[in-house]
C-alpha cells in the first residue's frame, strides 16, 4: 500500500526511496509500452492506407481498402453487435448453470450423478463446437425438433462452455477448506444450508474472474453461430455484404474491429471487478 511516512521535510527513509524508484521504473515501463502500442497501431493503419511509396526505382504500395464501402456498410455490420452480445449473454448464463451443476455432480458420491456429470463433460469436450452448433441446428430437424438459429446457437455455446467451465467451479468448490464445512456442521447446519450459506458464496467469488475470461472468449466464439445462416450477428453480416460485393477484406476488417473493441471493453470491466474482489475479504 502507499507509503505512510509523508511527514513534511523529513528526509525519506531508504525503504521509501527504494519504493519510489520502483514506482518510477514501473511508470516508465508502462509509458513505453503504451507508446509502442501506439506505434504498432499506426503501422497497422499505415499498412491499410493505400499509400504508394517510391524508394529509388522501386514503388511499393500498401493495401488499399475501399472507404466508400466501409461508410456504406458500417451501419449494417454494427447492427449485428446486439445479436452477438445477446447470444453471448444468454449462452454464458446457461453455461454457468450447467457448469455449476456439473461441478456439484463431480462432488457427488452417488454413482449415476457423478457419471452424468463426467459423461457430459467428456462428450462435449470431445467434439468440436462447430459440430455441436450444426448438430442443434441441422441434425435435430431430422428428428422433428426445429430450433431457431439463436436458440440452437445458445444451446450449443451454453452446453460447450458449461462443460469447460465446470472445471472452474470445481476448483472454486475445492478452494473452500474442509474447516469451513466442519464449522458449519458444528453450528448444526444441514448439508444444504452449508452449501448455500458457506461453500457456494466462497466458491462463486473464486470463480468470478475466470468466468469473466470465458465470457470474453464466448463473445468471439459466438461468431461460429453465423454458420447457421439464420443469426444476423456481426460475423454473419460481415460475410454477407463482403461476399455479395466482393469486399470481404473491408467487411472482415470491420467485424474484426468490432470484436476487438467489445473484448477490450469487457476486459476493462473484468479488470475492475477483479481488483475490487482482490481488495475484498479473502
Amino acid at each position: 500500500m502507499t507509503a505512510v511516512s509523508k511527514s513534511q521535510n523529513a528526509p525519506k527513509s531508504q525503504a521509501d526511496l527504494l519504493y519510489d524508484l520502483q514506482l518510477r521504473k514501473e511508470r516508465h515501463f508502462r509509458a513505453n509500452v503504451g507508446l509502442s502500442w501506439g506505434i504498432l497501431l499506426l503501422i497497422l493503419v499505415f499498412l491499410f492506407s493505400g499509400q504508394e511509396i517510391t524508394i529509388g526505382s522501386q514503388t511499393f504500395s500498401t493495401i488499399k481498402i475501399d472507404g466508400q464501402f466501409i461508410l456504406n456498410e458500417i451501419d449494417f455490420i454494427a447492427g449485428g453487435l446486439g445479436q452477438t452480445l445477446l447470444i453471448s449473454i444468454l449462452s454464458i448464463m446457461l453455461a454457468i448453470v450447467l457448469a455449476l451443476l456439473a461441478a456439484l455432480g463431480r462432488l457427488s458420491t452417488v454413482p449415476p450423478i457423478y457419471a452424468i456429470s463426467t459423461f457430459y463433460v467428456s462428450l462435449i469436450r470431445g467434439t468440436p463446437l462447430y459440430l455441436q452448433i450444426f448438430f442443434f441446428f441441422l441434425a435435430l430437424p431430422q428428428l422433428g425438433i426445429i430450433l431457431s438459429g439463436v436458440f440452437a446457437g445458445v444451446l450449443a455455446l451454453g452446453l460447450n462452455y458449461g462443460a469447460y467451465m465446470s472445471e472452474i467451479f470445481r476448483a472454486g468448490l475445492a478452494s473452500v477448506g474442509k474447516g469451513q464445512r466442519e464449522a458449519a456442521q458444528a453450528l448444526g447446519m444441514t448439508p444444504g444450508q452449508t452449501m448455500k450459506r458457506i461453500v457456494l458464496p466462497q466458491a462463486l467469488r473464486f470463480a468470478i474472474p475466470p468466468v469473466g475470461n470465458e465470457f470474453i472468449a464466448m463473445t468471439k466464439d459466438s461468431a461460429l453461430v453465423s454458420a447457421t445462416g439464420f443469426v444476423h450477428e456481426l460475423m454473419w453480416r460481415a460475410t454477407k455484404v463482403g461476399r455479395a460485393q466482393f469486399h470481404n477484406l473491408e467487411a472482415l476488417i470491420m467485424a474484426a474491429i468490432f470484436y476487438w473493441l467489445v473484448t477490450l471493453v469487457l476486459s476493462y470491466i473484468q479488470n475492475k471487478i477483479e481488483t475490487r474482489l482482490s481488495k475484498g475479504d479473502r
Partner: protein
Amino acid sequence: MESKTAFESIPIVKVSNLDKYFGRLHVLKNISIEVPERQVVCLIGRSGSGKSTLLRCINFLEEPSHGVIEVDGVRVAGGEKGREHRQLVHDVRLKTGMVFQEFNLFPHMTVLENVIEGPVIVKGMDRKRAVDLAEQNLDSVGLLFKKDEYPMRLSGGQKQRVAIARALTMEPRVMLFDEPTSALDPELIGEVLNVMKKVALEGMTMIVVTHEMGFAREVADRVIVMAEGELIEDNKPEEIFNNPKDPRTEALIVRYRTGGN
C-alpha cells in the same frame, strides 16, 4: 429420571464404550467418560493419542464406530445411519459449541454476521434477538468494536475470540475446544486463554484438548491423559502434575516443562 438437584453428579456429557477406527487403525479404544455440569476438563496427550478424535466424536464431526454419546439427555449410538440418526446428531450439535484450532471463521461474512449465522439460520432465531445476543458475547470476548470487520482484518487471537463468541451465541450446554491456541503466535495465546478462563468462570461445561499445561493446571477441574487411543490417567490437575501415576504422563509433563512452561 432422577432429580436434577444433585448437581455434581448429573453428567452433561456421557461417552460410553466408544470405539473409533480409521480404516484398520484403532484410534479410540473403548473410551468411557462422564463430565458433570460446570466441570472444565482438559484432555492432554501426545499428538496421535486420539484426544482430538475423541473430542470430534462428541459432536459427530467424526462418526464413532461403536459406542454411545449422550449430551444433555440426547443419546446417540455411533455407527448408525438414516434420518433418525441424523436428527439426533443435529440435536447433539445444537447442545455443543465447537472451537477449532484453525478458527474456521467464515471469510465472506463480517464478525457480527459470523456470530449470528448459527442462531438465525439453524435455530431460526429472530435476527434482532440474535444481534443482541451476539453483541453481548462479542463484548464479553472484548471484540464488539470489531463487529463490522471481516475476519481477514483480525489477528489470530482476535479470530479465535470471535470463534468462541460464535459458539457461545448458539447457547450450548457444553463447549468443545480443539487445540484452540495451537495455531497462534505465542504472544496471542494469552488473550484466548483469558477468554476461555472467563467462560469457565461463568459456569460453562468445557472439554478442552490442549497443550497448554499452564491452563490445564490453573483452570481445569480435571485432567484426562490419553495415549494410544486410551485414557491412561484421569484426575485432579494437582494430582496429575505433582504426582503422575503413569510414566507416560510423567514424560508428557516433563516434555512441556522443559518446553518452557
